[in-house]
């Protein structure tokens, strides 16, 4: 187990190094680089060259990359925003807080609703409730979240005036973006919970448990639920990674000051240090969550760690 954990952590670190190099190289020559942004569009060639030298942009890519990594590793320094001049690390910390709040709210909603609906559907499998839930879930997975966001805004913010259209600051601001993010997860989770429960319900060990005289409640709690929960944990981990690092569109629509909106805005502002820093942070979050999911798996299912990878 310890070997497995170490191997996985080592793999994740190598992966992040590779990701950082790719991002660094990809964004290296974005049209109108950082120097252009800083010096302004009217700067002369000489002024541009001077700014480039000052920023170290005249050095070869690998030298700059090495310097960047050195700064990140030893000083926690990700550079400064070209637009606002603020340190990227501080910006990221601030934005990450907002994204985390949004993600946890959405996750809580998705988990509660998904488990409840999925279990109800599984208990009454084949009935009308089950059919309705599955139809709604199929549709829910296909709904474009940005359209759902607009419909929710139209109804709850504009028509009814119950909730603010966009922005952040009060708990009311959190409701619409969190619901928008939670809806597809509720659909996915209730389908998953249902099918896992149904699969496990007909497994041999459940038959054994019934045969030895356990009551239905105990069978469900100790045998069916416990075994059906593994895939749910996997999906939840992936989903959390998705929101923490991928709510670009929803955060942009609701002007939620999180990481996703930061990336989009920085791209429009050609603020390369911010984009690089944010992408790296998102990749780190994603890796950590994936790792956590795998480790939970290994912990719950002792066979996992011994498989050849």
């Amino acid at each position: 187990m310890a070997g497995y954990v170490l191997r996985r952590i080592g793999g994740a670190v190598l992966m992040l190094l590779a990701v950082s190099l790719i991002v660094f190289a990809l964004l290296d020559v974005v049209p109108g680089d950082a120097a252009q942004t800083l010096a302004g569009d009217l700067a002369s060639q000489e002024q541009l060259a001077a700014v480039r030298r000052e920023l170290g942009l005249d050095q070869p890519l690998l030298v700059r990359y090495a310097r960047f990594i050195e700064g990140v590793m030893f000083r926690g320094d990700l550079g400064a925003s070209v637009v606002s001049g603020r340190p990227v690390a501080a910006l990221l910390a601030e934005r990450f807080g907002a994204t985390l709040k949004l993600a946890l709210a959405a996750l809580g909603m998705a988990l509660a609703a998904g488990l409840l609906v999925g279990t109800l559907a599984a208990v009454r499998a084949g009935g009308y409730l089950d059919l309705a839930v599955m139809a709604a879930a199929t549709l829910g997975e296909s709904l474009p979240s940005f359209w759902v966001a607009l419909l929710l805004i139209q109804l709850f913010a504009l028509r009814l005036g119950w909730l603010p259209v966009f922005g952040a600051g009060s708990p009311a601001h959190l409701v619409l973006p969190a619901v928008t993010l939670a809806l597809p997860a509720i659909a996915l989770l209730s389908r998953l919970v249902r099918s896992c429960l149904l699969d496990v319900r007909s497994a041999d060990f459940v038959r054994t448990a019934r045969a030895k005289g356990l009551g239905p409640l105990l069978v469900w709690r100790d045998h069916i639920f416990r075994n059906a929960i593994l895939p749910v944990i996997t999906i939840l981990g992936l989903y959390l990674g998705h929101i923490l690092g991928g709510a670009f569109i929803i955060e942009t629509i609701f002007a939620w000051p999180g990481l996703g909106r930061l990336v989009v805005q920085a791209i429009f502002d050609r603020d390369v240090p911010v984009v690089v820093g944010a992408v790296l942070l998102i990749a780190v979050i994603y890796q950590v969550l994936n790792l956590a999911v795998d480790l939970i798996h290994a912990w719950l299912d002792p066979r996992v760690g011994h498989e050849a990878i």
Partner: protein
Amino acid sequence: MALNLEQPAGRALKRRRGEPAAAPGAARRRRRFSVRPNMLVGAALVGMLVVAGVLAPFIAPYPPDQIQAALRLQPPSFAHPFGTDAFGRDLYSRVLYGARIALYISLLSVLLAAAPGIWLGLLAGYHRGWGDQILSRTMDIWLAFPGLLLAIVLVARLGPSLDTTVIALGVVGMPSFYRVARSGTISARHALYVEAARALGIGHTRILWRHILPNLASPLIVLITLRMGTMLLAAGGLSFIGLGAQPPLPEWGALLATGRDYLDTAWWLAFFPGLAFTLSVTGFNLLGDGLRDVLAPETHGSATG
């Protein structure tokens, strides 16, 4: 196999599903003829998208970019079933032409993802060795970027437009095809029919393309169908935030972005493009799920990875 009483779910269950059925022939033939209504609905929706896209110039009542200042922001009526936008352009015609763009996006980006992904996956799975190691680790790095992030970075690098979106989505979508092709090839390369072909002296290339690839067709077709919906949504999301197809192109995401500015005055501008999205993506999802049930029931549940 010893009776395993406390068998945890998850991987173990998946593996059990992965085993071929005892008598695959008969069971599968019977399955093939019991097409569920879901799949028919899916096929109908996708068919609608194809017809709308291909025939847009013939069925659209107006040219999609015809500006009529006198008719700006008209609500839906008989003359303009989906209403008109701020320039007096007919939204119904624009959504129809948008179906063309939707087809273009889903077909081309999936092709860009599937062709190299399947090719590399076949080679890696068949020959294994260090080439497989390098390719698989590279694909893992790809997948270390969550969701749209890599696409957004690529689009930022290439400059936002319809074509760069398609390219970015193609690049981002490649690893899933690679993985399916590779794992399929690995399990097929010691199958009896491959050994037989090899014993007959047939070359590696021919074995790969003529013997192994056709046997992977089912999971690949399912993946292609499901991915077409995913790509369409992703492209719409990108252009919605301004990092994809740019107006005045009647791409649905771009139409939605415009509609967003008129939410309280002209609801139809955001409603109909969103509806078109939903119907098309639902179509691809239902069709893909249905195809999976019919063609490759054993791959159920592995699409989450």
